[in-house]
């Protein structure tokens, strides 16, 4: 009998600490499945983010590092430059990647570091109580924008992926929807940003379906 479904080797058999309805568990699993499919579990090094997913390494079963707030891409750069034979990826939310780590994101992309970034953009600071993030949409209500984000008061959302795509030598900073993210884990691709919008399970499941992961 063929086994058609099971626990990925890259995922530990433990319950996650995430709240009901959170998408982190699903994206952790998607990553674990891709890592397994590519057969790179013993080669991959992940950088866990700040925020709820800081202990992603308790769920994945491959080498991982933590990073200070916003510094995932600096840590990843240090690792990748010392270990070019490994596949290095970061897993970062928008508070991490677009706010406190915006500078790291811009420079890592512009340098053309050979890294993969999984950008979990839920347009809000989820862990700390739903405050406005740089990616919060116009009109979106949050704990710090109870009337909705206004252009006059808060400015426009930062379009990270679109911004990176404009970089000179744009082929160095590839930005991708998740349907192509398998390619970016292969270690052959350039810096990439699988851009997940929304953390509701339904939405991620939809992306999951579309991406055929």
């Amino acid at each position, binding site marked *: 009998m063929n086994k058609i479904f099971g626990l990925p080797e890259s995922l530990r058999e433990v319950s996650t600490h995430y709240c009901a309805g959170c998408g982190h568990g699903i994206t952790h699993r998607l990553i674990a499945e891709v890592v397994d499919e590519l057969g790179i579990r013993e080669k991959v090094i992940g950088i866990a983010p700040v925020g709820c997913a800081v202990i992603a390494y308790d769920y994945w079963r491959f*080498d991982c590092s933590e990073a200070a707030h916003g510094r995932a891409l600096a*840590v990843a750069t240090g690792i990748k430059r010392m270990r070019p034979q490994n596949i290095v990826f970061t897993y970062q939310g928008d508070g991490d990647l677009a706010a406190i780590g915006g500078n790291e994101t811009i420079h890592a992309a512009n340098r053309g570091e050979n890294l993969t970034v999984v950008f979990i953009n839920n347009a809000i600071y989820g862990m700390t109580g739903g405050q406005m993030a740089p990616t919060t949409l116009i009109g979106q209500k949050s704990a710090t924008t109870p009337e909705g984000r206004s252009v006059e008061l808060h400015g426009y959302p930062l379009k990270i992926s679109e911004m990176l795509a404009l970089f000179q030598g744009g082929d160095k900073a590839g930005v991708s929807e998740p349907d192509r993210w398998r390619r970016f884990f292969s270690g052959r691709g350039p810096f990439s940003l699988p851009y997940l919008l929304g953390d509701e399970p339904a939405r991620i499941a939809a992306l999951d379906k579309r991406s055929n992961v």
Partner: protein
Amino acid sequence: MVFGASATGARALTSSSSPGISLKQEGISYIAGADLPAVIVNIQRAGPGLGNIWPAQSDYFQATRGGGHGGYRLIVLAPASVQECYDFMFDAFDLADKYRNPVMILGDGLLGQMMEPLEKENTKHKVKNYPKPWALTGCKGREPNIAKSFYMIEGDLEESNLRQQKKYKLIQQKEERWEECLVDDAKIILVAYGSMARIAKGAVHKLREKGKKVGLIRPITLWPFPKKAFTKRRAPNTKYLVVEMSYGQMLEDVLLTINGKSKVEFYGRSGGGVPTEEEIIKKVSTL
């Protein structure tokens, strides 16, 4: 970047001058928390704030008390010559690897701008290779390694803290370093580190020519502070004069070590002001 490079087992170094080092403190705390080896060079300029780019020793507290958050310790080496800058770099990487702890080389603008002869051939140093089974290299044939300072489960962080405290105690027992100059018969002992110690040494020799029984203790490790250099010389008739390019930072460690058993005086300038031999000699004459 240093955190990441070090986590792979590579020997990693970063350097800057005071404000840049302040900026790096978050990362240094993470490196210390994750028990990663690294070397950090701080060539001190004057502060606070942007201050100026003249030499100073006003980052002593920052270097020896942790600098970043969370109650960690750096091993701090204070070279006083270009030769020592070279020699201590070998020691710094070895100490970092041996204890899995960040090491700081604390110099100042005088030393940073100095040109003087350097003998590379005479050095006895050899690069040691410490095994690093904890390094992130890909988990081939082993359980995954994690580089982290985060401990969420109750009691885990305290356990990690206590393990580090044990390490710090061991470092204190084993790694104190200092230089002594004419202290055996000295009635007045100057205490200075780094370039300041070279100026103080000049003053000691001039005072000796005048028949004054003056000596110098030069702490080489600022943390661990070389207590052993002082404990055998704590007599009521011995006087200490701490000289710094600050308004009294290492002074506090000297006071804690002397613990009231000898008189401790201080002379210091900062903000780019450097105490001169003449000023030190003048101060000694008032003791």
